[in-house]
């Protein structure tokens, strides 16, 4: 264990030879290393320490760049036209520019999580002290902080141990970001390697943040039975004053709950949340409620349901203050990263702040003390509620009909809509008094309101949709299992073997935001498809919320139907964005607990293990953010494939394997040193699925790994072929690439597949002990 520093002070020190006054001795850092695991090759790795590993992956999964436009406009040499084989004034070509943009996105995402972690830890240390022990699962977890152990080689035990880990994370982001400066890195593959590096740092930063809040705020600790919490537009009791919290960083929400508890008012004020702060809010206090994912912001604010809004950081609409003013809702900004132009009133008396908000002297205030923000939010909401009387700006039917009649059908709204929704046609119907088309559009709306901005007549089209769909909105009441945090060691022991041998067909991590192409129900459909097939389905963030929004005929959500454990057929919500680290952590722990591999600063070996053995795949169906890019990047470096929904194509680069290039799919057999063909498993490291049907089939295929036993491969092939036939209507044409010997063939499909093998000229290959690392070959001489 590394401790940050030691300071010894003595006012007066008498010795035989001297009298010393005001002695202060400071030691930068002492090592108290009680962790007996030997240090691996890459402690606190620099930007280039894992470059060779990255290059191995990138040799197999080559970038396919998808530029938004032909130019670079990042410096004053430009704009530079990079089309074709042109180079910019700095000498950069288009491939390097695109990889640079990927790196920039990953740096922004990683910086956001890491700064989030830094804010949390500073706050928690200030409030509770440095020596609070870390505890993410009590006796059920021995391998705490698996990502941190693996990446930097530190085993953190108290809050203060996390500070040095964050120091390293911050240094990596700064270094990687600096390489994107004009005249620095010039090679696209090196940019990609740096994107991987900062993605790895992002995973550490996320783990640090969640470990700290789980430990100190006593959030669920690896609990498969974490409480079921209410979710939906209609869950709040509108008779009570309502506080809406939006964002990702929970201290100000904790301040609200703590104040309500202290004043014995818990339950008398509704506290509801949007986005990941809602996850963490309900992890802290399960009686709090979740409205929905990020795309619910405008719906809720414009409907006037919030008497007061508290924003912290990340994924908050930039026009929150303006929208809140329209419905007379005061706003408290609580993060230095998102001040909304408000005056910093942190040092003012709480009563003065409450009075100013209640009397609408100011539209909002910036309060950087979470406890004060909590107090002011509660007192102001209670006083504002009777004045506001749920004032809203949702138009009535007559106003919508009149707008429909006045609409000129210019198409600016549909051309602004990310999902090309037929708004002009819906307006024509509205003119005739039919609001159903507008209500249908709301079901697939991502809540961006670009249609409003584009309308030359300034119609509030998004509000029209909200009115049209309000009946269904009010019925939105679902149950979601609160974020459970990490995966316990016991769970890993139970499933590690079956996963590595392929007998549990895969771990599907459905994560990310709600930028869906056709509504959020698809996420629930995908999750259930895999749970029914006895995969392990792990969820986080907005995707975890969307999964809750589909009920069966008995009115149950998937969280009520399927177990919350890390087990075959489980559907488990790990929590907020920063909880994504537990998904990587589970894969890492399989290598540590099941395979007994050393974790400590041993990244390359463990990534090689995961890539070749652990059938885990990520799906970010509605990914929109730079944070999602960084999260994906962390998984890429671990060798875990990630699939995005169609909007994810706008990340501007895929990492694609070529199944038709046999030479790309050889590994070493660690037992013999032979090079062995293993087929395209997994075929891609990052790609886009165009439809939910394609996502399902692709995820099944991407779960295959070279290490699968014949029994495991047979099972995985059964799911792949069965889903391919079901959703594509045909037998896959690449099935021969995944059959190593005839034992791999699913018994029920044997005659059909044997015929294919014959047609394809298939030859048997052996199942190696697979590795991409020559140094892992055990045979010597």
């Amino acid at each position, binding site marked *: 264990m590394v401790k940050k520093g030691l300071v010894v002070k003595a006012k007066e020190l008498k010795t035989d030879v001297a009298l010393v006054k005001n002695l202060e001795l400071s030691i930068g850092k002492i090592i108290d290393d009680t962790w007996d695991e030997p240090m691996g090759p890459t402690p606190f790795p620099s930007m280039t320490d894992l470059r060779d590993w990255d290059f191995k992956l990138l040799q197999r999964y080559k970038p396919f760049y*998808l530029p938004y436009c*032909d130019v670079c406009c990042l410096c004053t040499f430009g704009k530079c036209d990079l089309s074709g084989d042109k180079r910019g004034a700095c000498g950069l070509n288009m491939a390097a520019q695109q990889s640079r943009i990927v790196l920039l996105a990953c740096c922004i995402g990683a910086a956001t999580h890491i700064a989030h972690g830094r804010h949390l830890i500073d706050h928690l240390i200030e409030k509770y002290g440095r020596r609070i022990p870390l505890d993410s699962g009590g006796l059920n977890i021995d391998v705490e902080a698996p990502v941190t152990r693996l990446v930097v080689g530190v085993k953190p035990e108290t809050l203060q141990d996390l500070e040095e880990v964050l120091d390293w994370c911050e240094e990596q982001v700064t270094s990687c970001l600096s390489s994107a400066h004009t005249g620095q890195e010039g090679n696209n593959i090196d940019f990609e390697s740096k994107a991987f590096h900062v993605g790895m740092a992002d995973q550490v930063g996320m783990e640090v943040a969640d470990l700290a809040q789980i430990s100190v705020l006593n959030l669920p600790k690896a609990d498969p039975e974490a409480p079921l919490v209410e979710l939906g537009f209609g869950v709040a009791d509108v008779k009570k004053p309502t506080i809406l919290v939006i964002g990702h960083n929970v201290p100000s929400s904790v301040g609200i709950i703590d104040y309500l508890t202290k004043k014995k008012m818990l339950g008398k004020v509704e506290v509801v949340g949007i986005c990941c702060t809602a996850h963490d809010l309900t992890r802290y206090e399960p009686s709090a409620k979740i409205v929905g994912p990020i795309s619910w912001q405008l719906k809720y604010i414009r409907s006037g349901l919030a008497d007061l809004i508290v924003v912290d950081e990340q994924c908050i609409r930039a026009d929150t203050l303006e929208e809140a003013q329209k419905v007379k809702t005061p706003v408290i900004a609580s993060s230095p990263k998102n001040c909304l132009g408000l005056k910093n009133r942190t040092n003012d008396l709480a009563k003065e702040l409450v009075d100013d908000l209640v009397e609408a002297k100011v539209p909002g205030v910036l309060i950087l003390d979470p406890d004060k923000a909590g107090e002011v939010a509660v007192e102001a909401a209670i006083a504002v509620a009777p004045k506001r009387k749920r004032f809203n700006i949702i138009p009535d039917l007559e106003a919508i009909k009149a707008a429909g009649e006045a609409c000129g059908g210019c198409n600016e709204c549909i051309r602004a809509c990310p999902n090309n929704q037929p708004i002009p046609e819906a307006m024509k119907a509205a003119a005739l008094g039919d609001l159903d088309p507008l209500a249908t559009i709301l079901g697939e709306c991502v809540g961006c309101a670009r249609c409003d901005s584009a309308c030359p007549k300034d119609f509030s089209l998004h509000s029209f949709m909200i009115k049209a769909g309000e009946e269904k909105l009010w019925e939105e009441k679902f149950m979601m299992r609160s974020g459970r945090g990490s995966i316990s060691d016991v769970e890993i022991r139970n499933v590690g073997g079956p996963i590595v041998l392929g007998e549990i067909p895969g771990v599907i991590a459905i994560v990310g935001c709600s930028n869906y192409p056709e509504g959020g129900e698809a996420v629930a459909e995908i999750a259930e498809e895999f749970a029914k097939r006895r995969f392990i389905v792990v969820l986080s963030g907005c995707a975890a919320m969307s999964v809750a929004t589909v009920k069966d005929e008995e009115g149950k959500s998937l969280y009520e139907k399927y177990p919350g454990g890390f087990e075959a057929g489980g559907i488990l919500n790990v929590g907020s964005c920063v909880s994504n680290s537990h998904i990587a952590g589970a894969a890492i722990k399989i290598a540590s607990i099941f395979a007994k591999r050393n974790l400590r600063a041993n990244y390359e070996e463990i990534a090689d293990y995961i890539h070749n053995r652990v059938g885990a795949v990520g799906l970010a169906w509605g990914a929109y953010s730079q944070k999602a890019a960084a999260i994906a990047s962390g998984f890429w470096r671990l060798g875990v494939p990630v699939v995005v929904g169609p909007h994810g194509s706008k990340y501007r680069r895929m990492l694609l394997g070529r199944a038709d290039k046999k030479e790309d799919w050889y590994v070493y057999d660690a037992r013999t040193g032979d090079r062995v063909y293993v087929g395209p498993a997994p075929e891609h490291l990052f790609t886009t699925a*165009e439809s939910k049907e394609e996502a399902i089939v692709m995820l099944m295929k991407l779960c295959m790994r070279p290490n699968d036993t014949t029994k495991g491969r047979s099972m995985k092939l059964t799911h792949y072929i069965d889903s391919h036939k079901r959703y594509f209507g045909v037998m896959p044409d690449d099935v021969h690439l995944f059959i190593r010997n005839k034992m791999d063939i699913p018994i029920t499909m044997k005659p059909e597949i044997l015929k294919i093998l014959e047609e394809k000229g298939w030859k048997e290959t052996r199942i190696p002990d697979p590795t991409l690392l020559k140094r892992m070959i055990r045979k010597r001489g």
Partner: protein
Amino acid sequence: MSAKPEPWQTAEIAGPKKALVITKPEIAAAMIKRAKRSILVVGYLSTKTDKDTGKMIDYAIRLNKAAGIPIVATAHTIQEFVKKGFEQATQMNAMDIGNRLKDPTWKGLDGKGPYDVALFMGLPYYMEFVILSGLKHFSTNLKTISLDRYYNPHATWSFPNLKVEDWNQSFETMISKLGGN
């Protein structure tokens, strides 16, 4: 709807290199005729029924029959082809086909060599936009043609933004000029 060459999604501004507009469907037919080896990539939106027309996938099948263009069906589009009794389409992920079309050494679906013209229809607009951009910048000797209803500026050639009836008529003319029915 205007026939001006403006990107359908307002913010999807491309350039300086932008698609030439197919002002007459005869031009597209001539390009297909001139191509040594062409390929048609068909996305799942082609299986959705437009209220004023049949499914666009029917035009894809007719194009195949008229000009012998091989078809790659992305996502689950293949199922609709099979339902219609058309079994010659190859299923492939949209990014995967884009990545292969970029590669001048790819031997094609039939192993006979690279394609010189790739036609696209039925992908989500923004997804087709970026794939066409990838091909514009990184392919060699490949021309791309967007047959969708909306101007897609990263193609080499694209239809302008069209009314449904004009779009349908464009396909009818194109197929007729290629000798199909």
